[in-house]
């Protein structure tokens, strides 16, 4: 089980968006793609998810149950939150009672109340919608979780809560994660490996390992590491920051 991307190139019309991408995600591994806005991160993730077909190169995904959390929550507006969370389970053919029980249990852990579950998504706050979207992705017990800047619009309190839930889930079931972010702190907090992308056309310019176990990455550690990280020349170049004095 792994995700292998070889020599991938992609274009929209005549515009080259991605070039010469090689990427490997092993079972249980968390890989973060960081890079400036518009460098083709989301396109790469959509290619990895099989939502797009590559122009050139190969995408081989042997994970059995990939799931994705999109940039916006993308809940179905005509389904109650409970049914939204259970969507993937319904698709897998689980009977109604069982999938509702799973959805309810999962939602409880995410801090959603019984009352929230009976509401339609439009009646939920943005933060609640994000929790429901994460619950929907986790409900199918994925072995690969794709995150597309899933936490970028949330406040820091909610972010750290969802980070904790994600870490728990990875501890329990060793699911692999491929995440996109432009938030370096998020990458350092969650990932085993950080790939730095640069734009036009999008390509991977650097790779860094983060070796400390997740449990040891407390707040001050993350701050220190981020401060170090942002001084590295390849990061500064990718984000078009001026050279560090």
């Amino acid at each position: 089980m792994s995700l292998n991307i070889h020599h991938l190139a992609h274009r929209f019309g005549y515009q080259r968006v991605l070039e010469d991408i090689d990427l490997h995600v092993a079972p249980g591994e968390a890989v973060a793609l960081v890079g400036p806005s518009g460098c083709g991160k989301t396109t790469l993730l959509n290619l990895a998810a099989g939502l797009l077909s590559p122009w050139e190169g190969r995408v081989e995904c042997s994970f059995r149950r990939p799931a994705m959390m999109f940039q916006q929550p993308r809940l179905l507006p005509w389904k109650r939150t409970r049914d939204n969370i259970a969507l993937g389970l319904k698709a897998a053919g689980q009977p109604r009672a069982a999938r509702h029980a799973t959805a309810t249990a999962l939602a409880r852990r995410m801090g959603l109340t019984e009352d929230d579950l009976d509401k339609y998504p439009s009646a939920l706050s943005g933060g609640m919608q994000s929790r429901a979207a994460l619950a929907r992705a986790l409900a199918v017990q994925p072995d690969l979780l794709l995150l597309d800047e899933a936490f970028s619009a949330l406040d820091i309190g909610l972010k750290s809560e969802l980070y904790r839930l994600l870490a728990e889930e990875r501890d329990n079931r060793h699911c692999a994660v491929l995440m996109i972010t432009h938030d370096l702190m998020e990458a350092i907090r969650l990932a085993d490996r950080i790939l730095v992308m640069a734009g036009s056309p999008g390509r991977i310019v650097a790779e860094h390992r983060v070796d400390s176990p997740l449990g040891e990455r407390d707040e001050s550690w993350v701050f220190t590491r981020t401060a170090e990280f942002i001084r590295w020349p390849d990061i500064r170049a990718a984000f078009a920051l001026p050279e560090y004095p």
Partner: protein
Amino acid sequence: MSRARLTLARRLVDGLAATGHYLWGGWGSLASLCLFFALWEFTAQRLGSLILPTPGEAFATLAGLFASGEAWPEIAITARRALLGYVLALSLGSLLGLLAGLSVTASVMARPIVTLLVGTPPIAWLILALLWFGAGDGTPVFTVFIACFPIIFVGAMQGTRTLDGQLQAVAQMFGLPGWMKLTDVYLPHVVSYLFPGWITALGTAWKVVVMAELLATSDGVGAALAVTRSHLDTAASMAWIVALVGSLLAIEYLLLEPIKRKVESWRNFA
């Protein structure tokens, strides 16, 4: 068994409650209706009953028509023709519209034809229908069908064209099987485009059927109107018009609106 019956009873009560709730919310509409009748009464008193009978006279004549047993058969005939043409247009228009919306080429090709159909006045279709079907049920049914079809077709086509690509990606990502994509993603969205089209088409059906009957048949409300016109019986004309509008309002507000509110309940919380 008893439990199933209980659920059915519960559903029935819920449905009735929804209708009642809807009617209760209609005080504003009721006030404007009263204002309308007052205006009618005032104008009728000024003009005299040969030109415009008062609402009282019109309703009394209508009551007389019902009492003599004259009204029901005519209304039933008209309703049969209108509903037959409407149901044909509804099923064919919805189906073809949905299919046309799936392909860009089909939508582009359908556009001028729909414009042509919408632009052709129903009276022109009626003349053609008279030539093709003669005096019988065929003429009003066809005219209703052809007048309603493009309205429903456009609604259905817009419904599929405006499907959200983001939600389609969700459906693909979570591996929704074909039937689930249809019932959980496509239909709920499309219905919100279909319903306005269905309701507009229903009104059109009711108007067009009377026009067709007036010229083409010897029974139905339209034919009865033709008779009252030749007798210069304005009160009876108004009575038939009231019966017609009343039956349309009944179908729209007692049947279609409650269904729409039920199906689209998720919108009310937005």
